[in-house]
């Protein structure tokens, strides 16, 4: 490890340790660094900004209580994103009796070169047809950018198992979304 990388690792260790000890500035630093990644993943799973925000708020509460159990501070992003993904999955179950008003997402730049892009509204519709587990897998891969091995560690699957599940999901989405 280079000195620079070593210094960064020590700094991260220190921030996580101080946050676990209850230091507010260190905890706020973690929130600033990782909240948006957690929110993006939770939103892809739930399809609802408000539900996703609630899930991530709960995820921070869970993370704070369990921060002391994190052995490798360098895995903090993956660890937090996985907690947010799980809370998002649980929030889907809590909505089982909810009359969801499905609001259309404003296309975000979809008008640019529409023939070569997958429209967000189509992706949103396709995601609604997937189970919570499949949504979670796609969110961890594409919204959080985790590799198969990282996802496997949290799904208690082999990396090859994650890859094969992803391959099946991609093929399904290709049939639904690839109109060009």
């Amino acid at each position, binding site marked *: 490890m280079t000195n620079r990388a070593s210094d960064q690792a020590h700094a991260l260790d220190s921030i996580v340790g101080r946050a676990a000890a209850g230091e*507010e500035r260190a905890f*706020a630093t973690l*929130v600033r660094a990782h909240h948006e990644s957690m929110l993006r993943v939770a939103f892809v799973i739930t399809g609802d900004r408000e539900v996703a925000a609630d899930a991530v708020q709960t995820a*921070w509460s869970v993370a704070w209580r369990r921060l002391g159990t994190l052995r490798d501070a360098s895995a903090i992003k993956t660890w937090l994103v996985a907690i947010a993904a799980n809370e998002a999955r*649980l929030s889907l179950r809590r909505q089982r009796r909810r009359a969801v008003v499905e609001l259309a997402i404003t296309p975000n730049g979809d008008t640019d070169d529409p023939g070569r892009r997958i429209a967000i509204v189509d992706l949103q519709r396709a995601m609604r047809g997937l189970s919570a587990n499949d949504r979670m897998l796609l969110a961890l891969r594409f919204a959080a950018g985790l590799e198969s091995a990282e996802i496997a560690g949290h799904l208690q699957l082999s990396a090859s198992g994650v890859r094969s599940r992803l391959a099946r999901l991609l093929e399904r989405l290709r049939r639904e979304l690839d109109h*060009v």
Partner: protein
Amino acid sequence: MSDPTTFERRLADAFTRYADTAVLDVDIDEIATTMVALTLRSPRRDGVVAGLASRWPRRTLVTVGLLVTLLAAVLAAALIVGSHRRVPLPFGPAANGLIAFDSGGDMYVGDPVTGQSHLVLGGPGTQSDPAFSPDGSHLALIQSTSVSGKDDVVVVGVDGSNPTVVTPRPLTNLTWLDWTPDSRQVVLVAAVGGHQGLLLADATGAGIRTLVNDVDVDIPVFRPPDGGEIMFRADTPNGSGIFVVDADGSHRRALIAPAATTNPQFDLRSPQYSPDGGRIAYMAWDDVRRVMRIFAMNADGSGAHQLASDPQAWFEGWPIWSPDGTRLIETRQFYDGSGHPLDNTRPYAVAWVDGRTPAVETGPPMTTGFQHAAWSPDGTEILVQGNDQQLILDPSGGPWHATPWTSNAYPAWQRDAPR
């Protein structure tokens, strides 16, 4: 179609744009301040136990523990000799007990009168979705130990005693959990045989069996007063219908035959028996007027009729009988003049089943999320949930207040024996 590699690149781009919509307008500094306030500045609920252990010498604790154990044994023997604990009936009015709630991934019970709460089950994993046994002695809850999408069901004493995993192996897509009326089994809905099946797990962990696995079951309920039948809404290839089976899963028959609808997600969901088991309230979608309305029918499926409704509401649903069977909580949503759903309206109303007394709106205006509700066992209050807050509402439309704790748990109110 494009080749898989090109499609994956385009899909990744679409996911990025989709996820970006979640973080539009996020003020990260404000978020950080809020999260610090909500987490670090909230007391850890297990701090009382930790504090006790740290202040008292170990030897003193052991001595006190032995004395307490001896005293408890004497008291227990006296209670066993003297009388059995009185338990409430599984249906109808009962006295109000504790409220279960999850917070920070752990499960607690709290007294809504004194505000006191204590930890029931914590540790690794997330505990959620509590349900009190009808006799009030135990909690069933869902325990998620990873993000694998599989969950266990745990039964634990209300005092935190004897936690037992009652699912032999983790279940996939576990969407419902409740108790049989005799408080001896936990009824579950989870993925089995390619469907959302109906399962019964012994509350002592002795085993699990499947009752229904050929249709997608949704929110099963036992028929009062003896729990001899189970009613549920099911999705079939012909559409959704309301079905009944005997308590052993046999003799399935349709109360409302499956039919296609333009609202398959919510049509006919959550049919509910009246506390005497004689009537059923349910919600049904009107394909022509495109509104959801609440209906009632006899328990054999005859005599269906729509209950009184508010013409301004496009959605009236999720009926929940009061313990005395005279009223129903219903959830409402309204449209504005241009056909868009209105936000920040009062979603709860209490309707009298007699159809003559006007329904009463109750609780504050809410945005979304406040759509789970439960009556207090004595029928004098309503517990609702959502947005990390539980509220206690007055069924008569009077003042409401928040519970002393912060949680968005599914409402679960312990039934206690009448005093």
